[in-house]
């Protein structure tokens, strides 16, 4: 069980998680129902009676991109605070009550959103609504709890970044690739900001972003939509709407030259990460980019696995695309053997990408990528949790959860030429940031 973790990457990687089965079916999703309360809270319900359980995800449009210097990490810290007591419940009661009713929960924060996830037996339905609405309406700000939670977040940072060379390098690459846009900030926050944000910062953030009109509630599982709408009205109906948050207007200017960042840290294993500016989640070219990345990085027969791992230039390689509200990065990484030379690997990756840009991909590669994407899609549709995540992704980033059901057709429509075009457009040298981790001997 994850617990209140963070960022985009973990998220993207979590997509590879198990989940199993499911099949193309024209009727998929036709029993989904939605309603919007007068205060702006949108509620989407997808009945699924396979198991007597429910997955309930609450998405807030609040993440690292809503931060600025001095309060970096605040969205993520806030996610922690949402478990730490309200004016009606003592700190810890939220979890105690939920678990005693048979439920489990988690949450994550990314550059774009904060998502609260509950998984529970349907017998706990009303309890969960009461708990979730309570913390949207009545969060309390106890100075002692705030200090203690600072320590928890610092511990999380030490584990996930400071003692993890891969994540430490990602943080530097992300910060180097963006000069203007707030995607430059690490979701977990810079250490000095973790130490210094104030009570007032927290209150402002809560008021601004934790409003019903800035959230969407997804309920998937063994439920009756009418009951869900009644519960939503009963528990969320009185929470007042707030003025819409200030939009993020900064647009990252086009990158006009390669950037590099080198990180020297104790360790044995060199690492290479390359990141290119690409599109937002709803970019027209996104299905083609997904197909391209599947060809490059998915599975042992993928182009980069064959070029790097099978040639013993890397221990492992992979990639992912940050799909958010604004233009994200497309990443390719390689973990090298202790004697490995990042320059050699960088050259190899560049030549592979150049070859795709000039020669394109084969029909077999294209077909394989589409089959893999589609199979993974149906695997995600096989669990209530996967469905809740998928609904949220499409509703929030594409503006309509129904687009979820167009995804297989969108991949199917991608041509070899689309793939070559998107490769040409994105994998340009002047558009990339290259990060190298140089392991150095530890002193003692």
């Amino acid at each position: 069980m994850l617990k209140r973790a963070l960022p985009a990457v973990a998220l993207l990687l979590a997509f590879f998680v198990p989940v199993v089965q499911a099949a193309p079916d024209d009727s998929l999703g036709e029993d989904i129902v939605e309603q919007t309360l007068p205060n702006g809270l949108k509620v989407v319900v997808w009945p699924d009676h396979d198991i007597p359980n429910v997955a309930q995800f609450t998405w807030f449009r609040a993440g690292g991109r809503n931060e600025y210097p001095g309060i970096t990490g605040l969205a993520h810290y806030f996610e922690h605070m949402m478990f730490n007591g309200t004016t009606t419940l003592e700190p810890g009661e939220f979890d105690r009550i939920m678990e005693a009713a048979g439920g489990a929960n988690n949450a994550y924060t990314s550059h774009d959103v904060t998502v609260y996830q509950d998984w529970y037996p349907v017998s706990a339905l009303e309890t969960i609504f009461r708990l979730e609405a309570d913390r949207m309406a009545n969060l309390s700000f106890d100075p002692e709890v705030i200090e203690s939670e600072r320590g928890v977040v610092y511990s999380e940072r030490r584990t996930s970044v400071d003692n993890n060379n891969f994540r430490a390098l990602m943080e530097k690459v992300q910060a180097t690739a963006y000069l203007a846009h707030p995607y430059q900030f690490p979701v977990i926050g810079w250490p000095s900001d973790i130490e210094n944000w104030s009570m007032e910062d927290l209150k402002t953030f809560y008021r601004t972003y934790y409003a019903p009109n800035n959230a969407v509630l997804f309920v998937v599982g063994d439920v009756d939509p009418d009951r869900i709408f009644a519960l939503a009205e009963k528990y969320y109906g009185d929470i007042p709407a707030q003025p819409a948050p200030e939009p993020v207007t900064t647009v990252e200017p086009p990158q006009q030259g390669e950037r590099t960042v080198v990180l020297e840290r104790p360790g044995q294993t060199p690492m290479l990460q390359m990141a290119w500016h690409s599109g937002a989640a709803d970019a027209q070219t996104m299905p083609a980019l997904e197909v391209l990345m599947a060809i490059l990085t998915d599975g042992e027969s993928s182009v980069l696995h064959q070029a790097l791992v099978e040639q013993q230039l890397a221990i492992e390689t992979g990639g992912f695309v940050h799909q958010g509200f604004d233009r994200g990065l497309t990443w390719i990484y390689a973990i090298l053997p202790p004697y490995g030379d990042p320059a050699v690997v960088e050259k190899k990756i560049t030549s592979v990408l150049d070859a795709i840009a000039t020669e394109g991909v084969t029909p077999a590669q294209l077909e394989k990528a589409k089959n893999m994407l589609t199979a993974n899609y149906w695997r995600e549709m096989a669990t209530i949790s996967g469905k809740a995540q998928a609904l949220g992704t499409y509703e929030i980033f594409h503006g309509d959860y129904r687009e979820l059901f167009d995804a297989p057709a969108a991949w199917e429509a991608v041509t070899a030429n689309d793939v070559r075009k998107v490769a040409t457009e994105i994998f340009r040298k002047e558009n990339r940031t290259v990060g190298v981790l140089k392991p150095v001997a530890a002193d003692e």
Partner: protein
Amino acid sequence: MLKMKMTAILAALLLLTACAATPEPETVAKDTGPDLQRLAKGVTLPAYETVQLPNGMQILLMEKHDVPMISFEALVRGGAVADPEGKIGTSALLADLLRRGAGDRDAMEFARTVESVGGILETSSSKEAVTVSGQFMSRDAELMIELLGDMLTEPTLARTEFDKLRARSVQQIAAMKDTSLRALTTIYGDAFLFGEHPYSRAVMGTEAGLASVTYPDIRRYFIEQFGADRTILAVVGDFDTATMRARLEEEFGGWRKAAGTLPEVSEPEPVPGNRVLLVNKPGATQTYFYIGNVGVARGYDKRAALDLVNTVFGGRFTSMLNTKLRVESGLTYGAGSRVTQYNEPGSVAIVSFTQTETTGEAIDMALGVLEQLHAEGLSPAQLASAKAYVLGQFPPELETSGGIAERLAIIAFYGLGRDDVDQYAGRVAAVEREAASAVIENVYPERGELVFVLIGDAAAIREVAASYGSVTEMQITDPRFKPAD
């Protein structure tokens, strides 16, 4: 539960995990208490067929037609306990090699065939078995059977692939030491706890162990430790049982038996007294710790009570450990307890991490929670809460064909029968406080009989480590997970 085989880095990134825990819930859900009676009805396994082939292979078949997919899980008895002496990681290498070419297909062709139809085919080793699992669209059932059959009965085991895999496996461990100390904590912990016993072996191998595995070792392992009489295969999904059965009988009916004997594994003895292993990672800003001893086997007859006790002690967010170390004190991002169970007793351990400066404080606090567990047992409220939690979180484990296939295989592997699922909810609901106390007494070690493993900056925590018992020290760069003899 993650099922896909993940590489070290992915695993590290996903391991943002924290375990969970529960304090004194005096005010547990007053108005909307858990509907225990309803929860206790639980879920049961649908009907399935068991087929015993004359060569000893056991096949379990369950139809599930909600979606046109088929999942399977094969367990081949052996695994790390069958690694040749000193050659830790042999079974893991063999498991990896199974995917690297079989039948007429070389490594690349094999991977491409699976991936071209969007299939999944994974292999791994564990302490007691080599696992092959996968999932295909039901329209590709024939291909699935062919690939699985080739992989189990005639893998190529190519020398060039072996050389590459061995080198990479060694390098991956080095990489984990730079990225995944949290995942390594239990590996060092169990290695030190079990000492000379085969359960001490890190499934993925050690840098030293892998380096000593030769190509003939792998071939020998395959001949001696692989075969029909070692194998349980569970298949769940969209197929017709009679047809699937006939095809599998045809595919596996002629498979040979394992030529060697399965190594006998003795019952591990609990470690008497306190012992401390300090793994030095210079410059680490955090200390990762493990505190445990030998626990109980998978066949333990009070398993339901054990699940409840561990849920309360360190198995969920509001557990006693997480409440104390994280929620109340902010010393860590996560603290929990972990119970592993094999044919013989596995380990039971507290696992957490904290910044270097608070190492002693966090460990003392964890020990205090352990003492509290022994002194007070479970309160009625804790017990009721744990029952609701365990029952409420159980159905998703059987939500997918993959989840069911895994469970069927495990049931057969440990000879547990379908009651392990069907009766589980009833057993959980029936546990009383006395039974929980008995489990605490039997399974959880007490102060004075603990094995400690600390990974961190030795210069800063050496003194703290020594306060818990006699210390053995090793370097993180040492190519083993326990001190050299």
